[in-house]
């Protein structure tokens, strides 16, 4: 019981941003039908934007979070307009779009080093209060971050499921031509979704960044896990992504409590690969929103 409690608390507090990141990636995947490798850099830039606002303007972390989400959302829209929309119009194939997104990821990751440098950048936040639950220590900040992530994830879910714009997005993802003749403007709808997806990624990056630091490889280091959560959890829509994200966090913590961290990651990746294999080629029905 103690072990489970530890795994759950650590997993949820440390990996909560994974849920946000996976939701953002799933939204893009569902709508545009491509895995956007450059989403990793949206996460990274979210961390940098938040750190920059926090340190350069003395803003609180929560204000920095809001600004970071907006900037990351805008960046996401720009990458869609400049790269992915162009690829779509030119009829570029799936593998080629993945490679293009890899190129965009590399371009962004190294370009930002000219702006932010290569050293880790730290946030300036007030010292946290330390708490304990079931003998597991965590900070007030981690708790707040977890609650915020839950609220944001819920808001994104409700937006997609219950609002008019969410219906537009789901319709466009389901059948683009039918959506057009039903009165849905595809460009506007797509931009709204890429903005929300980018904001979710940027916010995840900000949460990860404040827990460690903003650095060039922040998003890339978490990209694979985020991708696997989307591919595995996405068959059950956004709810599945949320559950898969939380489950992954808890599982990883549980593994790390028992074995060395690097080996725990290996075991997790092997487990994901096995799930991919068992699921087979039923992925095309996935990422229902």
């Amino acid at each position: 019981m103690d072990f489970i409690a530890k795994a759950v608390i650590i997993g949820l507090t440390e990996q909560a941003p994974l849920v946000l990141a996976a939701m953002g990636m799933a939204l893009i995947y569902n709508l545009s039908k491509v895995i956007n490798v450059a989403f990793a850099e949206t996460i990274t830039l979210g961390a940098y934007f938040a750190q920059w606002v926090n340190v350069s303007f003395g803003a609180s972390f929560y204000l920095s979070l809001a600004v970071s989400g907006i900037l990351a959302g805008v960046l996401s829209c720009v990458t869609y307009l400049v790269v992915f929309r162009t690829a779509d119009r030119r009829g570029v194939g799936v593998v080629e779009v993945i490679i293009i997104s890899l190129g965009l990821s590399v371009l962004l990751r190294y370009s930002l080093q000219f702006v932010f440098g290569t050293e880790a950048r730290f946030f300036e936040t007030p010292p946290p209060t330390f708490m304990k639950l079931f003998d597991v220590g965590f900070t007030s900040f981690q708790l707040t971050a977890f609650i915020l992530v839950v609220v944001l994830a819920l808001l994104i879910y409700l937006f997609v499921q219950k609002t008019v714009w969410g219906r537009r997005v789901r319709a466009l993802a389901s059948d683009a031509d039918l959506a057009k003749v039903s009165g849905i403007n595809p460009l506007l709808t797509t931009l709204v979704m890429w903005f929300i997806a980018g904001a979710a990624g940027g916010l995840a990056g900000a949460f990860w960044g404040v827990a460690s630091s903003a650095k060039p490889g922040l998003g890339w280091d978490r990209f694979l896990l985020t991708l696997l959560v989307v591919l595995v959890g996405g068959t059950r829509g956004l709810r599945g992504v949320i559950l898969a994200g939380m489950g992954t966090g808890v599982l990883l913590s549980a593994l790390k409590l028992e074995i060395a961290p690097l080996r725990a990651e290996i075991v997790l990746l092997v487990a994901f690969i096995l799930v991919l294999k068992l699921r087979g080629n039923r992925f095309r029905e996935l990422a229902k929103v």
Partner: protein
Amino acid sequence: MSAVWEYLFGSPAFLIFGTYTLMMIVGLGILLHLQLGVTGIGNFGVAGFWGAGLYTFGILQVHYDVGFWLALLAAAAAGGVLGLITGWVIADLDDDGVLAATLAVATIVFLAIESERDITGGRVGLGTIDFPFDVGERTDLAWLGILFGVTGVLLWYARRVHRSPYGRLLIATGTNEPLARSLTKPAKRTKVGVMALTSAGMGALGGLYGPIVHFLFPTQLTVAITVSVITALVLGGQQRPLGAFVGAVLTVGLFDIVIKLYVPLPRDVLEHTFPVTKQVVFGALLIFVLLFRPLGFLGRMRRETHVEGLTRV
């Protein structure tokens, strides 16, 4: 004249090392051409298969004093077994699943090397790995010659594949797998087979890299290698066996040989700005080439152009 010679070849060690890198990328690119350009398998874990061979070779040589040829064979086997398993996993997956699986395999290799420090040395490194022979001062040049030979063999093999029934099967699988299957072609087995064979080649190339660097570090296995290989292949033309060579000359050749050796850059630019700029250029190339000239520099295979001409008539 001697001044020109001195300028061009005055730093033979750096030139040779740059050319090693170039030929390594060419070799990996030819193998990736068979995977991606021919069979349609988007392998984003090239560094992993190459790294598995590199470290298998290194571990056997350093810890177990295994002879060169046996160690090289083991390196190929390591890459091949990993490729077989990966091929089995991805046989049923669509392109997104293949991305995830191949990336996961490469990450697992990297994590395993970092975590099993007792045998891999971890971040401290693993060495020393020497050349299996000694011809004096220019042993490294002889090794480069061997690398040229190996790459030549790979190119010859790739061109032969294109002209063979096996090659047509790979192309059919890559172009339209459901159709190939409906025509009773063993598409899944083909994908598994080509992954195993080409990954064995990648592992062998990894093994051949060990004596070049003498000391192995996990940082040699980063995604930058995969990006370099993919960029070279895409730029040169992923559907052409020579595509990797042309692309590698235009990218790695330009950056790691021409600019690095012959353009007088300040030291801090060379050490910091230059490698970052290189990656920015590679990223941009991937985007622009695939958007505006998806078949790369060399374009389509000559025989396809010829058939198109007939069709037009």
